[in-house]
């Protein structure tokens, strides 16, 4: 390659190849993945309208508050004598019928915040409404128990707070080939090829080099491992389907990652909600159904737990624009093979007892769900990650 071309890709010219020993060490991790538990978190970003997803179809107040927006009894899929699925959630209902779904109603936290940003922060950091944390709950988990960025993967190009620890973070990628390519760019490579680990200090410069080394190794490991498995199933042709397909390829190639985070956008339905939400829920549930199939076919579903949440639910009362405004408590979907409580975990939303903003009141703190997962699924001490003890639930054993 000519030097000028080399520079085109932005470079530092030099040769020689030294890979520090400790970098090699983790690149050769054993591929044994029996009983290797994984967690996939999906955020329906923007605030999904839970009341129109799982519909309290025998509740008169629901129909009174939503004269145009409510889903009619004959246009939904009944599940219990109180609650039914939005017709777009048929694939989710299939999972429900097979006992793979647990729906937890009325999940939230005290003094709910109705800003997307703030409430997402709260859900991602597992903080109180009045507390600002700069690490995410999955980031703290990775930092404490996993030690490598690839242990937590976000299916995106930049990393969200949920995956950030203090000095160890997860890594974001939608496309492992591009991630790998970026960690192989000449300047990156040349600097690292000259690098020995002998003098990396905990000071900022050492931290930068350490992060570079970890990034490069993680990118390489993710790329080289995940390319050994190509999914054969037909995922819906949209970016969310693509994110889940890539996640399945990570999991089915036995990548040693513990936690995944996927954000699906579009749920902020202030106007014309009916059609918009219907399309969104269809996209969501169809992709999830294929994802579960993909895992099942490869015998990894039993070791994967899929959790879907939104930063908040929406107001009970519809607005004037055929939509709903930001609300509070909402439902959370837990999908897995060996659920202890299948179907509905708890009581339906109480539309008689709303808060001062006329929003649903939570009865389950979202951090109880996290605590349960950390304790019973990932088998780690939940208190040291959530910084507080929360009562545990019973949806997994």
């Amino acid at each position, binding site marked *: 390659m000519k030097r000028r071309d080399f520079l085109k890709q932005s470079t530092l010219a030099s040769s020689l190849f030294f890979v520090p020993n400790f970098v090699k060490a983790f690149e050769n991790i054993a591929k044994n993945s029996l009983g290797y538990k994984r967690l996939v978190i999906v955020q329906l970003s923007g605030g999904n309208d839970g009341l129109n997803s799982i519909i309290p179809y025998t509740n008169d107040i629901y129909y009174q508050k939503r004269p145009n927006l409510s889903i009619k009894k004959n246009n939904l899929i009944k599940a219990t004598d109180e609650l039914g699925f939005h017709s777009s959630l048929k694939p989710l209902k299939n999972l429900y019928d097979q006992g793979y779904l647990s729906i937890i109603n009325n999940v939230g936290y005290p003094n709910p915040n109705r800003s997307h940003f703030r409430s997402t922060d709260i859900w991602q950091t597992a903080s109180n409404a009045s507390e600002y944390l700069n690490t995410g709950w999955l980031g703290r988990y990775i930092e404490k128990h996993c030690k490598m960025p690839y242990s937590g993967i976000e299916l995106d190009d930049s990393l969200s707070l949920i995956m950030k620890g203090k000095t160890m*973070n997860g890594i974001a990628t939608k496309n492992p080939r591009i991630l790998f390519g970026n960690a192989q760019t000449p300047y990156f490579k040349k600097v690292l090829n000259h690098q020995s680990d002998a003098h990396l200090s905990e000071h900022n410069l050492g931290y930068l080099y350490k992060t570079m080394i970890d990034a490069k190794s993680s990118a390489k490991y993710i790329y080289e491992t995940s390319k050994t498995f190509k999914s054969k199933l037909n995922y819906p042709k949209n970016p969310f389907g693509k994110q889940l397909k890539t996640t399945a390829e990570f999991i089915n190639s036995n990548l040693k990652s513990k936690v995944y985070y996927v954000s699906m956008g579009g749920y902020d339905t202030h106007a014309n909600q009916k059609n918009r939400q219907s399309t969104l829920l269809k996209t969501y549930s169809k992709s999830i159904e294929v994802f579960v199939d993909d895992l099942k076919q490869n015998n990894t579903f039993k070791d994967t737990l899929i959790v879907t949440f939104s930063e908040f639910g929406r107001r009970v009362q519809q607005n004037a624009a055929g939509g709903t405004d930001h609300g509070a408590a909402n439902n959370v979907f837990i999908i897995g093979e060996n659920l202890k409580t299948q179907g509905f975990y708890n009581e339906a939303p109480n539309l008689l007892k709303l808060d001062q903003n006329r929003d649903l009141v939570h009865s389950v703190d979202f951090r109880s769900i996290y605590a349960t997962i950390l304790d019973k699924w990932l088998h780690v001490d939940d208190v040291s990650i959530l910084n507080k003890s929360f009562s545990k639930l019973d949806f997994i054993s």
Partner: protein
Amino acid sequence: MKIRHIQHLYWRAGFGISSHELDDIKSNSKSKIVSNLFTNSEKINPIQLDLSEFLEIKNKTPKLLKKEMGEAAFQKLRQKSQQKVRYLNHTWIDRLTESESVLREKMTLFWANVFVCRDNNIFHIQQYNNTLRKNALGNFRAFVKAIAREASMSKYLNNNQNRKKSPNENFAREIMELFTLGIGNYTENDIKESARAFTGWAFKNDGSYFLRKKQHDYNEKTFFGKTGNFNGDDIIDIILEQRQCAKFICTKIYKYFVNPVVDDKRVEELTTQFYKNYDIKNLMTTIFSSKWFYNEENIGVKIKSPIELLVGIQKIVPVTFDKKNQLNYLQKMMGQVLLYPENVSGWKGNKNWIDSNTLMFRLKLASLILNNAVINLEEKGAFEDSFEKYYKNTKKKNSYIKTTKNWEAFAKQYGDLDPQKLKELLIVSKLDEDTEIMLNQLKIKSNRDYCIQLMSIPEYQLC
């Protein structure tokens, strides 16, 4: 004064120093160099965008406007005005790059991350930004009182909903927790009582402050052990009576301007001085005039913020962004979008800027804006986006940051420079031993290439 010390000063008080600037001042005494920084920042030059097409938003209430122009037209006008906030972002970055008031602008940026605020109303947020600029080197007491009256702040922390009958405590809580004292240095009762003192603080559509007397609680409050018919200003005065307030601000200043690792003894000294009169200019003068500021342990040890990184590059190679929206992209990918802080606690800075993804991006930044490197990463969608818009960028294949680079200007200052000198000008951090060997082995063909290479090593991430 040593060249290295001038560079250090200019990195902390500004965004680095160019070769010509350095030549101009390097024979001056330290006291002259420091005092010039302040003299150059004396003038307050507010940002004033042309907002004439949105004057109706400023002059009429939303209710009246909706009635006059109809809901749809009103929403359209409002959206267009919200777009202007992005324009303000670009203008601000240009300002950071070009202004002669280096220190005032750096301080403005610093205060924007103390008094964190976000607002879609272009009139209010521009006014807010200028309030930061105006008070950046002034008196902290007047500063806090001005901020408490700002329309944007009132909305951001719900003080506009703070009424006598049902006080909203958000502003009262954050002013103590995040702006003046820090968590744990007040009681829940202090919050309750002080919230009452800020009841009725309101703003007009044009952004000016007024008191809704009927909503204001004139009764007695007990705050930090004192009892009286306090109003908001009294509360701020009592907060400033706490030495903790001076300490809280001095700690932030020290971490930002001196060293992310705090030296308790130095902070104590600064606190003692600042507590006397809360004069920001005097405080900064003390820091920059001190001997310890120039200690080797303080030089090149701070991780640049994305804005420091971006502006620093532009100081060396003048660049115009042909597509201004790409400036937003760069900020987003690195995790710092001016005027769009993620929450009221602000950017944490230093190591918090860095994860695998941001670091790879930051190391590529110079190539992206100076060397037409390919972009293959997409920014995240927004909460408010539709599904299509949320993922809109995923279809794009290779793209580039479209910039016009002024290499002629670069050549004038750096073209004939000894490469060793260029390295010393660009890198203030200690060089990693192995990287130094690698640099020494490089065959340097042109200073232009070498400049991009130097900006691509981890050491350039530090200042």
